[in-house]
């Protein structure tokens, strides 16, 4: 916490109340899904919304039994798309951002504006052309069709450039060069190390974005066993209209799938450097 002088105490109550109201507003739906996860499908519609139900264990059993453990498969897929995809994407973005910040090379300006345009372009308008390209190459329906488009993140590259500019001093690089280190050694020993907090931030943003992504996997995939959690839960819901028992499973699934992400956010909250994100914009 920042050490602030506290000149007067009178303004304490109102700000605190407003903040708590905001916290309450944000927590109500989360509380709802946790309570709803304890209800049977009849209780869902017949008891008061926030009254706990009696079917939590049954619901959990149904969830993990659904389609021979399909939910776990979806969770594993989500972890693959978001985890492996974001790790690779972070590395690619960091390399490109570092090069754009720390080297002068032909085509750098063109590349920068292309990346900027990519940041501004709605990713979703690309989903359909990307689907067609994937179709042409026969990759549609496979893991790569979701992983590959996620590897390129113009915003990640843009951020990496900001972080590299802010956290890797030119003088350090020059000193290393004078010592005779190769560019690749400099990158490994100095650049990546200094950019680590920035990389964590890029990874987090990319991870959450991919984990929450819906349209791309929804369009690309048709085999349930390759679905990530978002698409899996959506299909449960849309099937719920003819098999309403699935509503219950979808709700428990939503509750369960939120937990690891919240834990990850709480854990990584202290490591990430969003301040650089806005700080870098002043330049």
């Amino acid at each position: 916490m920042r050490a602030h002088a506290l000149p007067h105490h009178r303004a304490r109550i109102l700000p605190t109340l407003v903040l708590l109201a905001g916290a309450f507003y944000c927590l109500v739906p989360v509380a709802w899904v946790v309570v709803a996860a304890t209800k049977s499908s009849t209780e869902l519609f017949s008891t008061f919304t926030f009254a706990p139900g009696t079917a939590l264990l049954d619901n959990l059993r149904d969830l993990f039994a659904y389609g021979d453990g399909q939910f776990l498969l979806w969770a594993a897929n989500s972890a693959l798309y978001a985890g492996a995809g974001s790790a690779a994407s972070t590395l690619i973005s960091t390399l490109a951002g570092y090069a754009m910040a720390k080297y002068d090379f032909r085509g750098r300006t063109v590349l920068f504006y292309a990346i900027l345009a990519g940041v501004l372009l709605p990713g979703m308008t690309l989903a359909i052309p990307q689907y067609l390209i994937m179709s042409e190459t026969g990759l549609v329906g496979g893991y790569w069709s979701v992983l590959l488009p996620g590897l390129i993140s113009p915003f990640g590259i843009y951020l990496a450039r900001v972080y590299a500019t802010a956290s890797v001093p030119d003088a350090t690089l020059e000193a290393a060069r004078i010592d005779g280190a190769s560019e690749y050694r400099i990158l490994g020993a100095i650049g990546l190390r200094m950019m680590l907090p920035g990389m964590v931030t890029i990874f987090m943003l990319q991870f959450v974005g991919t984990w929450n992504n819906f349209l791309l996997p929804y369009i690309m995939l048709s085999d349930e066993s390759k679905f990530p959690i978002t698409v899996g839960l959506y299909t449960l819901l849309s099937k719920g209209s003819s098999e309403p028992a699935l509503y219950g499973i979808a709700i428990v699934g939503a509750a369960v799938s939120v937990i690891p992400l919240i834990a990850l956010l709480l854990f990584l909250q202290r490591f990430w450097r969003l301040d650089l994100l806005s700080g870098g914009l002043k330049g």
Partner: protein
Amino acid sequence: MRIKGVSGPIAALGLAVLLAACSSGTNGGAGSTATQAAETGPVTLQHWCWSAGQKLKVEAFNKAHPNIQVRLTDAGGGTDTAAKLLTAGRAGNAPDTACLEYQTLPAMIVAGALADISAHTADVKDAFSPEVWTLTSFDGAVYGIPQDVGPMVMVYNRKRFDELKIEPPATWEDFAKVAADVREKDPEAYLATFAPAEFGNFAGLAQQAGASWWKIQDMTWTVGIADVPSLEVAGFWQGLIDKDLVKAEPLLTPEWNNQLNKGKILSWPSALWAPGVLYGIAEKQAGDWAIAPLPQWTKGDSRVAFQGGSAIAVTKNSQHAQAAATFAKWMNTDKAAYDIQIAEGEYPASLAGQQATSSSPPPKLVANQKDYWEIAAKAAQSTIPHISWGPNVSTAQSAFQDAAAAAVRDKTPLAEALKKTQQTVVDDMKATGFKVAGP
């Protein structure tokens, strides 16, 4: 089928090389079967279907056919499966077979996605009634084997009917009277729902009244979505909506399910698959419900249309058309298969399957109705012989759903919604290059 003229530019950009390198590790899925040369070992077929009993049926088939192994994928409901099949077909990686709702078949044929399997179907043609067989055969070509059908009936909450001392209506005129009666006796309850998204239901009701939404003669189409019988049906429901005698809102939403559970929605004019659906929502009401013949426009008639139901079709992508046809035939004519269907609450399309129902217990929702299968069989025998769907049913469906929802919401006439749908459908067909009679 690949889109022409595209692979050139991609190759030029070097993309193909990049992607080919990446693809080496992926599971080729359906596409990989295409590259197999001679068929030596067992054939593996990819099959897409969403329905409940499908998994058991496929397992039974695999057990009975060591040389044809089928891998089942659930690609979403009827609409999603059809949409994905079209795009996958273009990309050349469609499965060998897929379940398709009858109304989507013409669009699939026009898109060139399905194989004509008439060379393999001579031995099963007589396993189906002519009305059912026409659902998948067009002008001598056969594009699928009928799986289940949905002759229309009225499903109603008999317990609540008895409490309110009302009888299932025999005609639509009676239906309106009973609807008013229900509102009077229990102001919170409705006899039925008018759901603007239920395109197939409205189409079925219009067909019962004599409508013909698509006709083709000498390669010229006539579209009758706003023909006289359809407008009359729209007018009938309009009257009920205006007087608040039916509930005008979407079906099968959490809200609707809740009302149904409370006994505030008393019937659902739909089809033979409905008891299974309702059982999933209102398990507690098992035994309370029953079916009755669908109300008629003229007293003494017994005309009904089909609503829903699906066939198993073989795609043009398939390199194993014969094995695929064997699979489709077995799934829809073998005793083991239709026994599973009946147990799951599906009404089989084959005659033998329909006969087998008489010795089965009624579905759980209607467990106390002794004459359930009798009424079901009667409905199946009363279906209108020829049902014609057009090449752009999905366009009609989305246009109808939006227009009808807007009509219900803005209190504008349903008839206008039909006319708007008709116009959208005709414009779309003309833009594609079909010859269409009329404006």
